[in-house]
């Protein structure tokens, strides 16, 4: 299946909610508006032509300088035709809410919990959205860029010498 087929079908269905399409680097990457992210993934999965029936992975990303800083990146795979697609969607830090895709893929359950754990993205409709790898009483989201790797109260190291 050609990339153009996928892009045409997505544009036909979602039109202006498709923000950006990138075919130049790596696999086909489509950035979509956050309210339709769930619908886009459902469309990709259930459309008899596209058949992206396998959720390879799902992860968060944080660009603190952008207008919509928090992002979720979905990698879908069509196992029949061996096509891969990457779906990105971005949201604000103040309302980090996205519809959950656990109703489409069971696999999304822990992946979304991990993304919540790391970035604090709230997946609406998730059956059990709580931290998975970190302790429950943690009060911050460690993968956000504002949280430094090391304890900043340490005085025995000069970061200038470590290129940080």
């Amino acid at each position: 299946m050609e990339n153009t087929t996928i892009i045409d079908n997505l544009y036909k269905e979602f039109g202006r909610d498709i923000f950006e399409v990138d075919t130049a680097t790596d696999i086909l990457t489509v950035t979509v508006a956050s309210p339709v992210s769930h619908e886009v993934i459902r469309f990709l999965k259930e459309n008899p032509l596209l058949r992206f029936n396998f959720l390879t992975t799902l992860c968060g990303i944080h660009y603190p300088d952008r207008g919509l800083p928090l992002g979720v990146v979905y990698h879908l795979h069509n196992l029949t035709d061996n096509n891969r697609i990457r779906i990105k969607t971005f949201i604000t830090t103040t309302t980090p809410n996205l519809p959950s895709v656990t109703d489409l893929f069971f696999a999304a359950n822990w992946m979304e919990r991990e993304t919540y754990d790391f970035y604090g993205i709230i997946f609406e409709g998730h059956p059990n959205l709580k931290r998975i790898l970190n302790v429950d009483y943690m009060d911050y989201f460690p993968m956000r860029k504002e949280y430094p790797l090391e304890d900043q109260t340490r005085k025995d190291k000069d970061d200038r010498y470590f290129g940080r």
Partner: protein
Amino acid sequence: MPEQPPYTTLNLGPTHPATHGIFQNVLTMDGETIIDTQQTIGYIHRAFEKIAEHRSYYQITTLTDRMNYCSAPINNIGWHMTVEKLLGIKTTKRIDYLRIILMELARITDHLICNSVIGVDSGALTGFIYVFQEREKIYEIYEEISGARLTTNMGRIGGFERDINPAAVQKIRDLIKRLPAILKEFEKLLMRNRIFMDRTIGVGPISAERALNYGFTGPNLRAAGVDFDVRVMTPYSSYNDFEFTIPVGTNGDTYDRFCVRQEELWQSLKLVSDALENLPEGKYYVDVPQFYLPPKEEVYSKMEALIWHFKIVMGEIDVPVGEVYHSVEGSNGELGFYLVSDGGRTPYRLHFRRPCFIYYQALPEMIRGGVLSDAILTMSSMNVIAGELDA
């Protein structure tokens, strides 16, 4: 009489000897039958994805070692290939074939452990002790190649740190000669063993459809009857030069998973043998001085090598802006690296697709309604590696 029977809560783990790793299952039991389980993971979470954002590319190789430590070379090489994909480096056939040899050896060690542990959990310790010796021999091959055994830190971006030496070649040849007899004996011990078959057939089954929905990959998915293998679907490292079969099961139960792994052992052995016989002459690294860490002898004797060494180690080299997803067929599934680079010395974001993190969540469904001793078998047949689970 209460409406609900008085269930027992049983803590399996976090340090239970039969779970082969640190993860907890809080089981709700009705006598010997499992009603439900609550999984808790994260006991050895080391924040690899966060650390990776602060480390240069070579320092990340050592992080990948510690994910699936039963087959560290696959992780190392998978990571190096991801970086090569980002940089657009094309490797030579010799590098590709050497990588295939090492990755398949790693697959052999992993499958040997996993399958023999299924034996242990069903009460047959003999096979485990027997094949562990061969795993040891393969670790000796790693030692010849990289100097390390468990966390190998093998290879470089753009090839290998040194060429394969005659001692390593000899050890691989010895292994190819010796292993078939041992595998046959191991199979004789378990494969048609009445007790083993009774204990594993129909235990912890999952249908192909549900396995796909749960994101299964690797031998576990193939045992359910889906012939998905990254080595064939998106061939990397010249896997398309070789002929090998992908074994597929039917029921997705513990016995099928065992059999699929057992057949993969034979296929891996064949791949190692074919790659070694057809190993082309040529260089064991490609000419990318900005990224290939030069050999130590040259660093001490050549000005240019010293400069590159310094620049690479001190993180003076910027990696181009880009975004790639690369996956390899790890020993327990599709091991993926999603790398976002903003042009600095470290990744902007690095996400590891860890196969067992994704498929382990199907465990409650697979063990529900079964007995406790079967749950242990199901768990070990899924090949869950705690290091990879928690990353």
